[in-house]
């Protein structure tokens, strides 16, 4: 901001602040409720559709609540061996891709944040360029590559592409967080006898936890939800991930809408569990303490 900071007259400021203080107790939760409703609205529709028989989903006139409540779609989906296979694929692919991204992105991010080497800008720029390819056209080349390698219909192909697609964000956000840690903190740790590696793992990584949590969440969800590449690379029904597999609930021959939605709702569970496990690290205060 270029305009000079003009402090408001104290009294006027104080009065306004008091008014806001009274109001914010109501305004903020209401705003939160609005945000929540915007995000949950499609979800609630989906949940109610999963809880009615498939035949009722497209009935006219539509009703908000199911006329017949039934949880049979959930039972059918969970006991479906095909669904269990898709779930397994999604889990393996997302977990492995996330681990790979973290293992390769953390050292690279640390390096780019701490060393000003020649080609640093080019490196960071090229990493961003990997995000610029339209996946719809990239996928043809990816298919040919893995066909030549004999890796079509394999977890390896999916894991590798999902990892490559998501390195950019992880690397950039982590290097931002690393760069924000004052050099003094690191030097102090080294003076105290931590080695370079010890400093990275015992001092630097804990300080970047919010960034790590964001990077892990992002990568896991992106790999979990990847659709275009999986659709092309995996033809074997037993090896499909969830995103592709659940399409077979609704085809030209059968429309099991409630099963599609039940499966989609179950598909969220691992993501929520992952987030519940790491969410507590998404709090600040640690950095502030270290910088003092």
């Amino acid at each position, binding site marked *: 901001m270029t305009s000079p900071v003009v402090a408001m007259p104290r009294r006027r400021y104080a009065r306004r602040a008091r008014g806001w203080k009274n109001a914010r107790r109501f305004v903020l939760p209401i705003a939160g409720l609005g945000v929540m409703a915007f995000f949950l609205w499609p979800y609630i529709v989906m949940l109610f559709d999963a809880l009615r028989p498939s035949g009722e989903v497209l009935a006219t006139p539509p009703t908000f609540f199911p006329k017949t409540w039934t949880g049979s779609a959930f039972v059918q989906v969970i006991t479906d061996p095909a669904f269990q296979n898709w779930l397994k694929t999604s889990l393996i692919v997302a977990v492995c891709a996330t681990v790979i991204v973290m293992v390769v992105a953390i050292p690279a991010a640390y390096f780019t944040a701490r060393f000003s080497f020649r080609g640093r*800008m080019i490196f960071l720029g090229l990493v961003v360029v990997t995000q610029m390819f339209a996946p*719809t*056209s990239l996928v*043809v080349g990816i298919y040919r590559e893995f066909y030549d390698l004999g890796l079509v219909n394999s977890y390896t192909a999916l894991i590798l592409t999902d990892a490559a697609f998501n390195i950019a964000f992880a690397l950039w956000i982590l290097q931002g967080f690393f760069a924000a840690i004052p050099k003094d903190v690191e030097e102090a740790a080294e003076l105290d006898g931590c080695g370079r590696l010890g400093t990275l793992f015992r001092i630097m990584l804990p300080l970047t936890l919010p960034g790590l949590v964001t990077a892990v969440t992002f990568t896991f969800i992106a790999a979990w939800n990847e659709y*275009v590449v999986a659709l092309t690379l995996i033809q074997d029904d037993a090896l499909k991930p969830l995103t592709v597999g*659940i399409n077979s609930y609704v085809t030209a021959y059968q429309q099991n809408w409630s099963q599609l939605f039940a499966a989609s709702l179950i598909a969220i569970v691992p993501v929520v569990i992952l987030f519940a496990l790491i969410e507590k690290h*998404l709090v600040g205060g640690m950095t502030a303490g270290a910088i003092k």
Partner: protein
Amino acid sequence: MTVQEAAEGLHSASPSPVSASPTAGPATARVPRRRRVVLTPYFLLIPAVAVLALAMGYPLVWQIITSMQQFGLAQQFGQPAPFVWFDNYARLAADPYLWTVILRSILFCFVTAAMTMAVGTLVALLLNVVGPVVKVVIQIAMLLAWAMPVVAAMTIWNWLFDWRRGVVNWLLTSMGFDFQDHNWLQNPLSFFFVAMIIVVWMSVPFVAFSVYAGLTQVSGEVLEAAQMDGASARQRFWNIVVPIIRPVLGIVLLLQVIWDLRVFTQIKLLQDAGSIASDTNLLGTYIFQLGTGSSNFGMASAVSIFVLVLTVGISAFYVRTMLKEEES
């Protein structure tokens, strides 16, 4: 530190052994060690580069080559592809439809990315001030939107905006507007409006979570001190918070612009729900239509290289400024 300085610093740190210390014995012994310090960390980049090269190197090279070939269905099944060099590009540049699609995509991308950033940042700020219970509830709600399989999400959104039995029309009609049987997807403008709402819905969680992570680095004490000194909320936001979270904002905005420029799945599934594809094509769907749709992979590759150059062009200046700012 600017890049030039950095480069110079690197220069002087690793000179050739001769110029650094032509005489003294201990000094010559020190040079190789110093040099190792400069060289060793490059290893840290290798794993990332290897994964990127392994997964994306081949497709990239293939795409560049194919964009200069006549590559159709016959070539997909093994026939040799004749080289036409820049014919594909020349045909594209002369095609007014491509320019329409490009303009449309850029407009859609900027409006959507701006909306996403504004809403996402506001939600992040909201997360920062509400109580722990409300916070977790909002976070879970966003997580659900973010992680929903895209096909299921699009089905629901299509139904919400369905002209005959959609909830949106029903709501607007019962509020007194005439939206009985209004077809949102027929008119390109309202089609893109619906597409924007959906894309924003899907991308805000990402922005909000990232910005919120950035906000954790803002020290509460500094903000309090500023408040005591009479800085208004707006001043505190622009003068204290924004500079600290700028790296996060920078990368998130950049990725939003890139992703929104090549948006595909949402547009494709909306088109399938009933709109005229040629009126609503964006670059992502246009490439798909050329390639997988009509098996003209040469042209499709040319368009995607074109998009790549365009994206690099749009973002190059921005990335440069961002990196410079960060280093200074």
